[in-house]
């Protein structure tokens, strides 16, 4: 009977993290001595697909029925990280260091339907001093308010195991006082969450997103460095995307996409909306406007981190506008929810007002980025 625990893994949480994946990555990155505000900084943009109504920042937000993520979808947003496609873990994966790009932090996602294989790998990682980001279905996690109520893919950080007591040590830090957890949980409970079929309870089509013991191994080459050139590249890429100078995943992005989205919303005001469309406002837009609000806050944190590289007044100006833009995205999220609850298409006009404010602010941000980048690329830094 073996046991092992890793001490002093930071309980990383910021209200602007993207999701539970980023939250868990942040804890592991800090444990590795890296700054999540830099490594997980994503570009500033906006995407809209008029064919299906999907929106996003650097990829489209959509419900998925799998945890087998594709490489192209995973690598459109981060300058300092590389995320290969989800791989089925095998002996070969165990023997390689899984660092394909030494100039990026490599975030490797593994699955294996055999619970013993997944457990043995977790044990080996803990024994080598690496905290493990593991996915679970919240339905099986007794500390969470979703316990035996709602299903949902979620990430926690496992920091230890004790085979004699039959428990894992883990934490799930979100500062939601009803759902925060750090401590020990029975292995059986966690394993149930890791192997769950994770059905979508809201789906009439019996959709599922099996967890398949998904876990994430984060590693960085010994020569990995945060360079000024790459820091500035985050700004440059954001500027290009905002100004619509490049496509992402074969689609236009930036302010023009925001204009197209706003135009299409206004058209909906004239239509008779059905239940599905109201649900789009209530669930899809509400959640994803909030995701975008958090992206603006994250970008603000990133600009704050690199402010010494920028003219002082420009960094402060960009941060102020990002704060405002984030606030308007949050208000837009609330209006979308209200439209869905009250089935009030007349509120679309209020939503559009918020998007116009956002457009103005983010146009200014793009111009500020452009002016501070002028002459800085590529030789000054």
């Amino acid at each position, binding site marked *: 009977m073996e046991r092992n625990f890793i001490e002093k893994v930071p309980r990383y949480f910021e209200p602007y993290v993207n999701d539970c994946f980023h939250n868990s990555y942040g804890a592991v990155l800090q444990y590795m001595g890296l700054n999540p505000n830099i490594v997980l900084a994503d570009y500033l943009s906006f995407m809209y697909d008029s064919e299906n109504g999907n929106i996003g920042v650097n990829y489209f937000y959509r419900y998925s029925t799998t945890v087998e993520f594709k490489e192209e979808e995973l690598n459109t947003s981060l300058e300092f990280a590389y995320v290969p496609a989800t791989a089925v873990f095998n002996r070969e994966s165990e023997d390689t260091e899984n660092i394909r790009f030494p100039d990026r932090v490599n975030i490797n996602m593994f699955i294996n339907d055999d619970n013993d294989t997944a457990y043995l790998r977790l044990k080996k990682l803990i024994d080598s001093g690496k905290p493990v980001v593991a996915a679970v279905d919240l339905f099986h996690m007794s500390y969470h308010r979703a316990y035996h109520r709602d299903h949902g893919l979620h990430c926690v950080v496992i920091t230890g195991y004790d085979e004699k007591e039959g428990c894992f040590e883990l934490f799930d830090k979100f500062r939601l*006082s009803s759902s925060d957890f750090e401590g020990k949980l029975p292995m059986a409970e966690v394993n149930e969450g890791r192997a769950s079929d994770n059905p979508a309870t809201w789906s009439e089509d019996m959709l599922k997103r099996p967890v398949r013991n998904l876990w994430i191994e984060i590693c960085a080459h010994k020569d990995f460095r945060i360079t000024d050139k790459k820091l500035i590249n985050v700004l440059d890429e954001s500027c290009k995307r905002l100004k619509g100078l490049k496509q992402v995943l074969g689609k236009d992005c930036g302010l023009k996409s925001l204009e197209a989205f706003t135009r299409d919303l206004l058209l909906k005001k004239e239509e008779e909306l059905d239940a599905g469309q109201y649900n789009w406002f209530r669930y899809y837009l509400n959640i994803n406007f909030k995701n975008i609000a958090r992206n603006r806050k994250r970008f603000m944190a990133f600009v704050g981190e690199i402010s010494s590289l920028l003219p002082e007044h420009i960094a402060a100006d960009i941060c102020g506008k990002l704060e405002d833009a984030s606030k308007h995205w949050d208000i837009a999220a609330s209006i979308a929810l*209200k439209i869905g609850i009250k089935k009030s298409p007349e509120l679309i006009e209020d939503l559009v*007002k918020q998007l116009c404010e956002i457009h103005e602010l983010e146009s200014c941000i793009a111009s500020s980025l452009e002016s501070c980048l002028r002459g800085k690329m590529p030789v000054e830094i």
Partner: protein
Amino acid sequence: MQKQEIEQKICEVVSRLAQFNNDNIEVDSDLRDNYGVDSIVLVELLVELEDVFAITFDSSFLTYEVFSTVKSISDYVYGKINTDCVSIN
């Protein structure tokens, strides 16, 4: 309508929608930290209060920064009912 009556009605709705501590709603307590009223529940709460008080919340105020306590909501409702002209600081 008196402010105390408004606060009482709001507390009743908060008590029903709160995730925890439902039986002890205090007007100055932060809704998210003390009762688990997240941004979704907050909008559900405000929508319900629109019916209770026959008012409409200004869309640009639909944020947790503006309505973080029962008191901040009741101040708004009181102003809306009595003057229909509210300024939010």
